[in-house]
């Protein structure tokens, strides 16, 4: 019996948004009487952080603190249409719709402030802390709260905005496959080091080193959540998961978490992550969605590391001890 170390590498890119476009998302923004902002969406927060990232996008665009913005998601009576949370489209599509809606609301807000301060709206700027000031004359200020009160009760003006973001649908040439799939791509590379036991066929992941290019990390902790959790899922796909262990035979189907296997908290490997940021020109503040691509490089990197360790090519996922032992036997060891 021996333990064999090996390392494997993989790199990927990932399309952001629904393939071929044609997937609109809308957002509405309005202010309360005292200048807090509600963002209304029908987009779904599955845990990826939709509510949180759109809140930061809205706050940044409006020029107010994030604590003055609340995002309400997913009531079809109030939230305007959104295609849904899939295809790494949330940040890109919904984020852009929120920018447009918040921009329109901001335009109203600055025009209302201009009327109160008797200046040109073009000379105003927000301080990001709930105030609006005249550029170059910092003593001339008004709070967003006062602007909202004046807008509604004196001027008869709403501080609200609508936004839609759509990448128009692209078609596919049946003969060549010519198409415009998406407008931007995220990137990742990964090295995985494993230890393989040639007696049991067990694979232990020793260390993961990765680099992810995400456009811009709109909230670095939310990005980290995706990358750490996504790599765990990739590891799970590589080494454990299947609904049909003897595919294409439909036997031995798992029906519970005793038979559908995933790595537990004790199987987690150290993961050193680097984030690179190359903003995409049509992404909100440059941010691409990191949610899906993060799992992808793990699968091949683990497979390549197993080959490096024991010379067994596991080209069928998942890489189970059984497959490794059969491979070792086929190799004559």
């Amino acid at each position, binding site marked *: 019996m021996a333990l064999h170390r090996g390392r*494997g*590498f993989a*790199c990927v*890119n990932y399309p952001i948004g629904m393939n071929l476009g044609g997937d609109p998302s809308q957002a509405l923004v309005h202010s309360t009487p005292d200048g807090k902002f509600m963002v209304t969406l029908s*987009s*779904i*927060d*599955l*845990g990826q952080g939709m509510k*949180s990232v759109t*809140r930061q996008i809205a706050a*940044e665009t409006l020029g107010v603190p*994030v604590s003055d913005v*609340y995002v309400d998601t997913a*009531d079809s*009576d109030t939230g305007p249409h*959104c295609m849904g949370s*899939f295809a790494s489209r949330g940040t890109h599509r919904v984020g852009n719709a929120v920018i447009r809606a918040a921009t*329109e609301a*901001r335009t*109203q807000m600055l*025009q209302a402030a201009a009327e109160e301060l008797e200046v040109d*709206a*073009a000379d105003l700027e927000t301080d990001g802390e709930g105030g609006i000031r005249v550029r170059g004359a910092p003593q001339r200020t008004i709070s967003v709260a006062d602007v909202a009160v004046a807008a509604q009760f004196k001027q008869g003006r709403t501080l609200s905005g609508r936004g839609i973001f759509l990448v128009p649908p*692209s*078609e596919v*040439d*049946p*003969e*060549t*496959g*010519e*198409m*415009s799939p998406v407008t931007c791509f995220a*990137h990742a590379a990964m*090295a995985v080091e494993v230890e393989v036991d040639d007696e049991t066929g067990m694979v232990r992941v020793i260390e993961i*080193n990765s*680099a992810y290019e995400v456009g*811009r*990390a*709109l909230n670095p902790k939310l990005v980290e959540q995706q990358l750490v959790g996504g790599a765990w899922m990739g590891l799970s796909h590589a080494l454990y*998961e299947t*609904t049909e262990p003897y595919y*294409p035979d439909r036997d031995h189907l*798992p*029906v*519970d978490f005793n038979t559908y296997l995933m790595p537990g908290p004790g199987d987690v490997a*150290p993961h*050193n*992550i*680097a*984030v690179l940021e190359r*903003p995409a020109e049509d*992404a*909100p503040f440059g941010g691409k969605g990191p949610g*899906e691509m993060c*799992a992808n*490089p793990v699968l091949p990197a683990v497979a*390549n590391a197993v080959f490096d360790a024991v010379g067994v090519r596991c080209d069928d*996922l998942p890489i189970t001890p059984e497959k490794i032992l059969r491979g070792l036997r086929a190799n004559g060891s």
Partner: protein
Amino acid sequence: MTSFEFRREFFADERQGQLNEIGKPTIRQDILGHVTGRSPYYDDHLFDGLLHMRCVRSPHHHARIVSVDFSEAARMEGVRRVVGPDDVPKNLNTLLSLIGFGKEDEPLLTPSKVAYRGEPILAIVAESERQARAAVQAVRVEWEELPHVLDVEEALKPNAPVVNATYPGNTFEYYDKYDHQKLRFGDVEQGFAKADQIVEGSYRMSPIEQAPMETCGAIAVPETNDRIACYTSTQALFFSLATTAKLLDMSSARLHFVGGTVGGGFGGKVDSIVEPMSVLGALLTGAPVKFMWDREEEMQVGAPRGAELWKIKDGIDSRGRIVARSFTGYFDSGAYTRLSSYAVVKATGHLPGPYSIPNVASNVFCVFTNRTPATAMRGFGITGVDFAIECQMDRGARATNMNPIDFRILNAYRDGDMKAHRRLAKNTALIECCQVVADKARWIIGSQSRTQSSLRGGGGEKAHVPATVIDEEGRIGDRRRSDVPTAPHSAGGRKRRLPEGSLRGEDVVAAPPQNPDMLGDAPASDPAASPENGRTLARPRFGPPAEVQVDRPRPRRPQARERPAIPAAPARPSTRRPLRRRTSVSRHVSGFRRR
């Protein structure tokens, strides 16, 4: 054990702007609800008199329903209603009909022939879950088993059992013409002939359960004003709402969908089955009805990430450059289409991976087999082929005795390269990711590799669309008549050559804001910033810094390096129209229905 760092030295000049809230590690808006157990998932709404729905399901892979006797079940304690196929007003649907893609092929409750184990044929609505389960057990069904097919390659053979009557060839049909999606770029046969070595591999992605901790479910509740409220775990609220309205043939205005707080999805909550089922139950009983999958159903009836099979052939020259790559891919769609047809198109647009290869061809099939229909999962259409491509890259590196990172950097795509789907690469960063990982993992790479950049070395010769060999192999129905090979250019039919530079469309950019107030301020030099009506009134100078004026294409920074200019996106994107087909096959294409 986890470390997390930013490598800000890369692309630093492409990031500008002082941002206030963006880039901050602000805690999640929903986190207080999560840690106090108060976040309102769909099942966290209590209703007096809630009824429970369970399905009678097929025990066979493929069978005809001879007879169904639910008389005993209907009389059991607590049973309020037996729901059958006749209760579904429009009992045939395909999910992507909402974007006009594909033919209706799947009933909500199957009336006559089941095509996978677990397919629902009846539903019982009872006062408790236990009563519903007991009644399901009491339904007597007589089945006539039919031959079944579970293997994607077997399913393409002429005598294979027909899984799905809508698609008698056992494949999704693309553009009313082919039984697969083609990609043709250059001349792979010539590429293979010129290569120094050929590397081949075959890879399988396993079916995988999304396994969100919250299973799929919905509660439908009769509301005032003759409406039905539906609390749902869906990942796509209006998608589920529209599917429900369609299947139940009711006005969408009568539906009030509430969701948005979901216990994980990962793609498994797009299929919009629990919503129409629960709403139907509520319509038929006048009471609140919950339809929730238990964990076993979630694992075996809930659609998984489908299995995939990929065969890849590479031709590599003596310097380690991949000069030709061909793919034959099979997505196992299971018994019905759901979303696999679209996964095929997405995967095709992704080929040949993040590499610049002058000759690429692929045939990718969406194949019907007698198993649980597949659907989306995190990495939809991409995860499986990325596994295949990156294992193939490892084979290629070993075949050429190259360090696997050097091999990838040598072949990596860069800004300005023409991709196989005939659009120029931009905003690429693969090389830098490879370099950073090599650094972090202390994996020694060649000095050449360390100095490469995504910004340099692209375009030039690599910016051209090559002369391309096309064929008309694999027309719909061919494979029912005779065994037709599946690999590109393998069937020996007539080939044609498209001249160099052949393009039928152009890149697509986002539709512009509909209203100048949504545009914010912009530098005067940016032509796209001027509203189309030419209005010049002073608009407030504000908004995200220039970099984040993302709704408009930014003019590219002048590049000192020599490479072909990437065509700037048009200044007025609204004047553009999506690529239209000229020929008679235009009708179906991606067939986006314009309403």
